[in-house]
């Protein structure tokens, strides 16, 4: 109970800070100039919607400190009502415009600012402490995406950026997913085998773990630069390589580097997964006459699977983020949007490119975690302290 109320308090603090101290949005006469901050006070004039938001946050306060006042059941409705707050706030901000001047609304736009994001984060943290927190948080995020998604917020900067690049957006999103998932999948088999070799041969262990560690500590960008040199050479001099579509830039180098990056979490986890299987179990398998292959397939692998799986989870989640760098070398993905935004100093385009990456990483993490928990349950051993990956 104490942990829950701590989350709720942290969340409430963030939400109130965001609402009171920081501007919720910024009105920009065009895409790049510094805009006019819109804070809650300026928005409040005659806006019943914002008043409702404020009331809800106050209600959230009552919810958080419910044990000090009467712990009424009614208060448990509050986290559910908070689901709508970020979405409604976007709706409201989209209609805002500074008084006194007229702007070309084709060009002018409203960006979401620190206050909004703080409030958003605060609400999510508060909800995570409430009963059915996962569902609440999911609903909040979905509602916040749905409001601009159905076109209710025409002047929101994120929405304008999205409309501009809608076609490219989905194409890049697909590339991003393909690149990060396939490169992780390709690392799977070698990763597990390397982990097994580490488990079997003490001598090789240091070398293998050292090598995969090396890939991990090399900065991704410089690894990309390094891999381009041999690939360019190969594609120019070996016709087969060029015919396969492998060139010094684009998809191939990004794919290779991402695969190398996935090796460490998978190998390290596979190794510790195999290693933590008790010797007695293996011995008894030997005693009943199982062959090496049978032991691997029927004893070692199933018992190590939960740990291996947590390595895969780490690999996929980190891969989704790393794939951004492919945008720099013609590999596409959300990185292409992010770097375009950076080059134009268009913060909203950068945010638009980042949000899907964060969401994808979170979704993969949650989904894989579910599988992992299920597997751990079936195996019947607790592996919680063996997250050796990262």
């Amino acid at each position, binding site marked *: 109970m104490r942990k829950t109320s701590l989350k709720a308090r942290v969340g409430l603090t963030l939400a109130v800070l965001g609402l009171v101290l920081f501007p919720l949005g910024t009105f920009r006469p065009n895409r790049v100039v510094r805009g006019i901050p819109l804070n809650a006070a300026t928005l409040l004039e005659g806006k019943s919607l914002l008043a409702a938001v404020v009331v809800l946050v106050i209600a959230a306060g009552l919810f958080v400190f419910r044990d000090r006042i009467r712990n009424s059941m009614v208060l448990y409705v509050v986290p559910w009502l908070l689901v709508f707050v970020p979405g409604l706030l976007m709706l409201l901000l989209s209609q805002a415009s500074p008084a006194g001047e007229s702007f070309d609304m084709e060009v002018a736009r409203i960006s979401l600012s620190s206050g909004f994001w703080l409030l958003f984060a605060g609400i999510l943290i508060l909800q995570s402490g409430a009963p059915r927190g996962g569902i609440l948080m999911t609903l909040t995020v979905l509602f916040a995406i749905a409001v601009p998604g159905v076109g209710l917020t025409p002047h929101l900067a994120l929405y304008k950026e999205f409309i501009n690049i809608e076609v490219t957006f989905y194409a890049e999103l697909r590339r991003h997913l393909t690149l990060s998932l396939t490169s992780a999948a390709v690392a799977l088999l070698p990763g597990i085998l390397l982990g097994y070799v580490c488990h079997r041969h003490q001598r090789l262990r240091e070398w293998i773990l050292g090598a995969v560690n090396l890939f991990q500590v090399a900065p991704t960008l410089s690894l990309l630069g390094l891999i381009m040199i041999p690939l360019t050479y190969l594609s120019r001099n070996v016709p087969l390589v060029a015919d396969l579509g492998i060139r010094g830039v684009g998809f191939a180098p990004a794919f290779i580097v991402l695969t190398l990056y996935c090796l460490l979490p998978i190998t390290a986890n596979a190794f510790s997964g195999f290693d933590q299987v008790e010797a007695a179990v293996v011995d008894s398998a030997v005693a009943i006459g199982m062959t090496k292959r049978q032991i691997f397939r029927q004893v070692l692998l199933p018992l190590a699977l939960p740990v291996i799986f947590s390595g895969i989870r780490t690999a996929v989640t980190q891969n989704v983020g790393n794939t951004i760098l492919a945008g720099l070398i013609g590999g596409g993905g959300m990185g292409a949007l992010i770097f375009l935004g950076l080059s134009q100093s268009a913060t909203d385009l950068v945010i638009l490119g980042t949000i899907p990456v964060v969401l994808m990483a979170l979704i993969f993490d949650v989904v894989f975690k579910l*599988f992992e928990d299920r597997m751990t349950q079936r195996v019947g051993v607790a592996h919680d302290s063996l997250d050796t990956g990262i």
Partner: protein
Amino acid sequence: MKKHLILLVFLLILTLVFGTGCSQPAESPAEAPAEQPSEVEKEPVVVATMLDSEGSIFGKMIIQVLNANGIETVDKVNFGTPDILRKALENGEVDLVLDYTGSGQYYHPEDATDTSIWNDPQKGYELTAKLDKEKMNLLWLTPASANNTEMIAIKREFAEANNIVTMTDLAAYINDGNPFKLICSAGFAENSMGLLGYEEAYGFKLKDDQLIILSSGNTAEMLKALSEGTNDVNASLVYGTDGALDKMNLVVVEDPAQVPPVYLPAPVLRGEVAESYPEIEGLLKPIFESLNLEALQKLNAQVAYDGKDAAAVADAYLKENGFLK
């Protein structure tokens, strides 16, 4: 236990198939360009540009014009950084790119020892075109007459208050010990055809504390700093065709000595592709000739500052000027 394994493998295969399956339409023309035998003789032209607003506009224009004239294209607009784009062109991963004539000095440094050539728009273009044709079989088509070179921008009010029009005026202002702070890229600050060249030509010298040097050549950040006066910045590196000049009320300090190299934007086409599509040169020529500095600044401003879609901006320009119906 076996069941779970099968399930796991099945799931992974599913993700794989889903992942690759989804991407087929976007990926296939780019990844396996040379695989079908000569059933279809003419492959689509892969058009790629740099990661900036000018690259988007030119890229979309080229694609629209080629498509309107029955040439199939693959859209790789905003492909990557300049060096990546050049590599991709040399490797044949892309067929048609937008590049800048002055870049020839970096592509063929051994033949670019006479730096004065790069200050002349025509000679610079001819030398780059000649070297690339001979060594790389790359064709430089007609460039636009808009010099997208490195210049120094100041605020209009600042220029008027201190009577600064040319670099000579600016040098005098600096030498009088007035407050001055320039924000620029490392490449510009350390280049003998950049800041060092300016200092020599106009006789001034900036102290270390009068410079803010960023590692990248991203002028958007610099101009933001200039327009907002961050850290007392009152001058910034700018590229000639940048749309910010008009929008942010900035002016370029004139450079009568023509210190930096001339960078004219031009389409660069692979020789082999030019053979199968000889008409491309003629299609693009009138469009590039029509684009001068002012026109390009306006188009860039629409994309970078008004946040309009590059394809729409390109389409509107082509239609207004009668290149597209």
